Structures are given as C-alpha cells and as structure tokens.
C-alpha cells in the first residue's frame, strides 16, 4: 500500500482562517484571503519530518525482454528499466468493440458482448466471454466462461473452459496445460503439459498434442492425437 501523507491544520497568520496542509509543507497560500505564508510562521514546533510507511512492492517480468523488476503494489503503470517498454499494470474490461493492441500485466476481461478487434492482446490473465479477432496471449491463464470465439489463435499458461462454456478457435491454441469442462473446437490444440477433459467436456480438433491426457467418464475427445515423449 502507498504511504498516506499526514495532514495538519494550519491557521492563516493574516485572516485566521484554518486549512489543511501536508505535514511536510514548506509554504502555502491562504484559501480564504490569498496571503502567502511559510510553515515556520504557523507551526511553532517547526517542520518535522514525517516517516512514511514502506511501500509494498511486487515483482514482475517484462513481456518483451523478460527483465525482472519491482513495482509498487498499487502502481497502474511502469516502464521496464532494461528495454524501456511501457507496462500497463491495471485491469481492463472490454464490453463493446475494442480496436488496437493491448498489453497488460493485470487481468483482461472480454465480456459476453465484447469484441476484441485488435491484432494482439496480452494480459497476465484473460477471462473470455465474448469474441476476439486478434491473437490472445495469457501467460498465467485464459479462462473461457461464455460462448466465446477467437478468430486467430491463443497461447499461455493454462486454458480453462468452464462447464457450459464453449470456445471455437480459428487457429492453433498453444498452452502449458488445460482443463476442459465445456466445449473446445479448434484446428490444433497443443498442450506442453497435462490436459484434462472433464465429465461434461468436449474437445474436437484436427490435431491434439499433449504430454499427459485424462478423459473422465462422460468426456468426449475426437481428433488426431500425438503425445510428447517423456523428458529424459
């Protein structure tokens, strides 16, 4: 949390009007009579230093160069110290049409009527309920909650499709792991790690690649499949 600056009540030496100022203020203008006065004039004990609380920080890596850096927990943006890339740290929600690329370190939610029309959107976490024409990149996870469609592909850490949700993807999906309780249809589904199809899940793809696969009773899979060889 960012430090909270303490305020002090000061009295204008000219008109006697009180007003609130930062405890570290050097000088100010009276909001009533406009008189300029210094803190030494009104604070008998003089100006004293305020000890600010330690700002909590978090660590994140630049999406372009991978450089690790610390930013304040509440910061909404930052700049990579290594490559100068601007990083947007907050969250964003698309409820209508959105054009242009997005690069977030936070969460991107594309609502049920949302349509991402840019060419590439990157966010640590993406929750997809609507449509996307552009490529989606979610290093942490891409969660599909509604009847979603991606015209191009997507990649990221894990792909989660909730029960009752569906995702139709026009190009290759490339994820570390997957959990499908809804329906997924795509040309190529590539999972570098484990893939689980839940009892209400369906996966239909021309090509399915995985390291490990579990299809629970009731789950459906259809396509040409290939497993990766075991790591040495």
């Amino acid at each position, binding site marked *: 949390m960012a430090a909270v600056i303490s305020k002090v009540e000061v009295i204008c030496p000219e008109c006697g009007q009180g007003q609130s100022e930062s405890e570290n203020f050097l000088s100010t203008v009276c909001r009533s009579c406009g008189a300029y006065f210094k803190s030494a004039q009104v604070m008998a004990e003089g100006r004293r230093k305020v000890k600010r609380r330690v700002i909590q920080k978090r660590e994140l890596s630049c999406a372009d160069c991978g450089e690790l850096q610390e930013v304040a927990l509440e910061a909404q943006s930052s700049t990579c110290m290594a490559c100068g890339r601007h990083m947007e740290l907050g969250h964003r929600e698309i409820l209508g049409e959105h054009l242009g690329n997005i690069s977030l370190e936070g969460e991107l939610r594309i609502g049920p009527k949302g349509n991402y029309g840019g060419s590439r959107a990157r966010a640590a976490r993406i929750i997809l309920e609507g449509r996307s024409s552009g490529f989606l990149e979610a290093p942490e996870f891409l969660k599909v909650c509604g009847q979603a469609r991606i015209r191009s592909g997507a990649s990221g850490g894990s792909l989660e499709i909730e029960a009752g949700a569906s995702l139709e993807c026009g190009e290759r999906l490339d994820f570390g792991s997957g959990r499908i309780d809804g329906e997924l249809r795509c040309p190529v589904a590539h999972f570098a790690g*484990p893939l689980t*199809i839940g009892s209400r899940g*369906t996966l239909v793809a021309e090509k*399915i690649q*995985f*390291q*490990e*696969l*579990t*299809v*629970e*009773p*009731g*789950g*459906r*899979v*259809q*396509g*040409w*499949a*290939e*497993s990766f*060889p*075991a790591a040495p």
Partner: protein
Amino acid sequence: MNSVGGAETDSFDGKVPEIASGAFAIWGDIRLARNAVLQAKVKGNVLAEHKVILTPEAEVSGRIQGGDVCVEGKVEGGVEARGRVWLKKGAVVRKQCVAQSLRLEAGVDFRGELRVGEG
C-alpha cells in the same frame, strides 16, 4: 483363431492368468474370454471380452479390442475398448485409441486417431 480362458476376478489389481508368459510369439488372432494379462508378442489381433493388460514385454502387431484395456507394452494396430483405456508410462500405441474414458500417462508414445466418449 485361438481361444484362451480367463480368471475369476474383475479387477486389474486382482489375480488374473498370464497369457503366454515368456519370450515367445503367437502368430494369428487370439480371443480372450475372460480377464487376462498378456506378455507375449502377438502377430495379429487381440480380441478380449473383458479386461486385458499388456505388460511392458508384450507387443501386438494388430489391434486390441476389449472391455477395459491397460497397455504398458506396444500396440501397432490401435486400441478399441468398450470401457476404459489406461496407457501407462512406456507404452507405445499407434493408429487409434477408442474408449469411453482414457488415462494417458506422461511418457506414453501415442500417435493416431483419438475417439473418446462416443456412443
């Protein structure tokens, strides 16, 4: 076509007879009437009415059909099960895998058509 009897158990973990344990091969299709563990090399198909387990030494050039199928060995012609298929680490399966549910462990070499949960 050969016909080989089976066991009293209905579990993979239980005692089941070993079919052709030892290093010899069978030419032709074999039919397993009950649960069985297969350790031989089979140049043909394996048609099991119930559960069948292929040990790591087993190799089947054709396909395996059965109720539940567990594979640790090599199957060239695919696996078709009315129930569950379990492909364990080290298994090699080609051509196809048809089942109602599937567990494919890391370290399995599978390449082929996959149809799970149909019908």
